[in-house]
C-alpha cells in the first residue's frame, strides 16, 4: 500500500497547480499509470479518495481520470522496442514487487528481448505521472 504516498503526491500537486495558476475550478486531471509499476487501480483509487478527504483539494475523485500507460522499452544497444508484457522470462513475485517500488530496478531483473542487454530505456509506461490538469481561471 505504498500507493498512498504516490496518491498523496498527485493531490498535493493538483493543489499547488491550482494556486500557482490561480484557477477557480479544476475540471479534469488526467493521471497516467505506467504498466511497469504494476499499481492496482482499486488500491490507487481508494488511496486517492482518502487523500482527497485529508487534503480537501478542489477536485472530486470523479475529476481524476486514471489511464493505464502501456510500458514500452527500447534497447540502447540494438534499438529493439518491446512491450513490458512481452518479456519472455516471467518475473518472480519479489522481482515484480521490487519494480513496483522502484521501477528502475527493472534493469536488474529484465533484459532486452533481442540482444540480452540491461541497457534499455523506459520510453513510456514507467510509473505515476500527471498528464494534464484542465481548469478555469
Amino acid at each position, binding site marked *: 500500500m505504498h500507493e498512498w504516498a504516490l496518491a498523496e*503526491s498527485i493531490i498535493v*500537486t493538483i493543489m499547488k497547480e491550482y494556486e500557482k495558476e490561480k484557477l477557480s475550478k479544476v475540471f479534469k486531471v488526467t493521471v497516467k499509470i505506467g504498466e511497469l509499476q504494476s499499481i492496482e487501480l482499486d488500491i490507487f483509487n481508494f488511496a486517492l479518495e482518502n487523500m482527497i478527504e485529508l487534503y480537501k483539494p478542489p477536485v472530486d475523485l470523479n475529476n481524476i481520470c486514471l489511464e493505464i500507460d502501456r510500458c514500452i522499452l527500447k534497447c540502447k544497444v540494438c534499438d529493439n522496442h518491446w512491450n513490458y508484457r512481452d518479456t519472455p522470462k516471467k518475473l518472480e513475485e519479489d522481482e515484480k514487487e521490487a519494480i513496483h517500488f*522502484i521501477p528502475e530496478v527493472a534493469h536488474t531483473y529484465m533484459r532486452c528481448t533481442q540482444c540480452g542487454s540491461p541497457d534499455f530505456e523506459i520510453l513510456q509506461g514507467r510509473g505515476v505521472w500527471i498528464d494534464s490538469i484542465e481548469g478555469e481561471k
Partner: protein
Amino acid sequence: MDPRLNIINKRLENIKRVIAVSGGKGGIGKSQTAAALAQYLSMQNYRVGLLDLDFCGPSSHLILGIDDVFPEEDMGILPPLVGGIHFMSITFFSGGQPAPLRGGEISNAIIEILAITRWGPLDFLIIDMPPGTGDPTLDVIRLMERVEFLLVTTPSRVAQEVMKKELSVLRELHIPVIGVLENMKIKNNSPTEEVLAGLQVPFLGSIDFDEDLEDALGNTDKLLATGFVKQLGQILAHSQMIS
C-alpha cells in the same frame, strides 16, 4: 508533470538536519564516514536516518552488516530500524544484484525513493553519496531544500583535486558545507588544511589510516571499537557540527 517532485520536501519536513556525505572521488571513505556518523549520532540518542544513494556500489549495508530486513509498506515505505538507525538503500530492491542504471534512471530512482520513504521525525538524515558530481549530487542539491554537505577527502593529490572541484560547485550554489574531513592519513602532513586555508570552509580534522578497519566491517560492535570511529567521535565532539 512529475507529481513526486512536490512531495519530497514534505517527506523531509520533520527532519532537523539533512547531511550529504560526499567528496567527489571514490574510495575515500564516504560510506565509512556516513555509517560511523550515523552510529555515533545514534549513540548520542539522536534519531538518525541513513540513506544510501550509491546505486552502483551500495556499501552502507555491508559496513553496518544490515541483512535480512525489508522496508514495511504503510502509506509509503518505512525504513527498517537497524541498530538504532532508520535505514534505506537501493539494495532492498536490487537484492544485491547489479543495477546497471544510466544517470537519468538513477535520478528517477532517487526521486522515487525520496517521494515514497516516510522517515518520520529525525534529528539527522545522513546520506551516503556516490562518487562524482553527477545526477545524484545534482539531484540532492536540486531536490532537498535544506541539505548540507560534509566532504571527505584523503591526503592524496588526486583526491584533493576532485574535492576542490566539488567544493567550488557547492560554494557557487551557496549550499552549506559543514566542513572537510581528511581520511586515511598516513604521513604527518595534512594537505587538506592548507588547501582549505582562505576558502572559509572548516577543516574538521584527520582520521588515520586504520589497518584494522576491514576486520570490523559488518559488525557494529567491532566498528564502534575501531580507531576510525574513535577519531571521528573526537572530531565531532570538538566541532560545532552537532549543535
